């Protein structure tokens, strides 16, 4: 309970801090909304011309893109430092978080808010509303699926970035992993064969961020819910374990850091 209060306090501070630059804050949100709208137009053009890809149509794309955008946006808003955790580790900036009587990982990743995430998060809901498959129970499933997909994504980011404890600077690998995760999430799952699907559920769990949540939103099945829940729990457990193991190896140069 105290951790939840702590998180709420951190998020409130992040929001106030981001809103200090009011124009930049609003322009980032509106800019990202526009960016998502324009990007999705590609899929409208594609499905206008080719109608469907192995049973996957524009309506499915609206939902997949929606849940992906909202999950991505949620992580960017609430756990912005998950995107740069490897830099924090390499630059010795974990010292700051280690000096507090709070969970190091939770404190580190939640200490930054990426304002544009709010645009992504909002766009996801609009995308679902435009899918033509909107229902009230579907809307509730959309919220649950977004939370679980966000958990998988945040865990994946932490997992990949925590490898910096062992391998040092790895900006390229992390950006490659994040790009691959987002790119694979948005493409129709029906494109991939069995081996590729195995990778998309394990090594790069993009299916748990795009296709499976979309399937769950479209129609409730216990199987898709179980896949999402199991995926979120397993990846969170793995991410926390790897981070803790890595933290034992953590060294810093006693550099003076200022956390703003």
């Amino acid at each position, binding site marked *: 309970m105290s951790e939840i209060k702590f998180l709420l306090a951190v998020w409130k501070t992040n929001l106030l801090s981001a809103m200090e*630059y009011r*124009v*930049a804050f609003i*322009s*980032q949100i*509106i*800019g*990202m909304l*526009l*960016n998502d709208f*324009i*990007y999705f*137009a*590609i899929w409208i*053009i*594609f499905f*206008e*011309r*080719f109608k*469907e*890809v*192995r049973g996957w149509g524009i309506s499915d794309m609206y939902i997949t893109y929606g849940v992906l955008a909202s999950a991505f946006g949620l992580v960017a808003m609430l756990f912005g430092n998950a995107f740069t955790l490897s830099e924090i580790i390499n630059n010795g900036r974990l010292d700051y978080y280690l000096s507090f009587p709070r969970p190091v990982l939770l404190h580190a990743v939640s200490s930054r808010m990426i304002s*544009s995430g709010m645009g992504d998060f909002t766009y996801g809901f609009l995308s679902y509303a435009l899918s033509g498959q909107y229902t009230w129970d579907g809307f509730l499933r959309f919220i649950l699926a977004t939370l679980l997909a966000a958990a998988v994504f945040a865990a994946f980011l932490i997992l990949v970035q925590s490898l910096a404890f062992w391998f040092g600077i790895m*900006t*390229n*690998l992390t*950006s*490659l992993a994040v*790009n*691959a995760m987002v*790119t*694979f999430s948005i*493409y*129709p799952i*029906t*494109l*991939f064969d069995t081996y*590729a699907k195995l990778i998309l559920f394990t090594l790069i769990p993009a299916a748990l961020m795009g296709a499976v949540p979309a399937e769950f939103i479209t129609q409730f099945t216990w199987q898709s819910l179980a896949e999402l829940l199991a995926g979120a729990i397993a990846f969170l457990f793995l991410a926390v374990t790897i981070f803790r193991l890595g933290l034992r190896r953590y060294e810093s140069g006693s550099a003076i850091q200022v956390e703003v």
Partner: protein
Amino acid sequence: MKTFQKYWAIFQITLINSLAYPGELIGRSLMIAPFMWIFYQLWKVTFSAAGTESINGMTLYSTMWYLMMAETIELSRPALARTISENVKDGSIAYLLNKPYSFLLYQFSNSMGETIFRALMNAIFGSLVIWWLVGPPPTPLGWLFAFIAVLGAWILNFCITCLIGLSAFLVEDVSPFVWIYQKFIFILGGFLIPLDFYPPWLQVIAKALPFSAMIYGPSKLFVAPTMELFANVLILQLIWIVTLGATLVFAYRRGVTYLTVNGG
């Protein structure tokens, strides 16, 4: 001639600098591989579902090599807008303005130096993947025409990204412009889907804009090198380079009048 040597030296320094971290260069270029693989999956299924080998004159083979060239151009673009915007915001632009060179030509030489090896590595890795998936690359004439058109694309990209960066004189944050510019390249440039697959009305609009001269033109020339297309692409590039170049010079001159740098 002396003026040219100055910028040539700046270009060379950045070029050599870009080779200082080969691991970084290779790692960044590897990103093209998963993109090419996923594009192949999408277009293989699409051509198969359409039940035809050719759609609007494009085969699976030409579509994939087209996308390889498009990806190479896009992934090689340096983050110039953000760099200039940071220079304007933190005042470090003052250190560039008081040097005996043109700020715009300095930025151009610098960005070209950053781009060359990045483009080369992307082209090598992208070509290897596509060769493995659909077969050997198009004719040498395609490489030649595409190379010339890519130079024009880089100049156009420089004009637009520099304009976006300089907009930091007026706005707090240029990121939304960067995102939207990138998405215009994606859609109106034919980056993810060749413009040939667009509805005719949209093709007419897209092919008149600078974005298509940056991605579609060079990529299409690569897979279908004809003199007519080559001339069309170069004329379109020239028109937009003159228009955007003039706008850039005007914006820069107006921008520096807004500049206030305190301390140092």
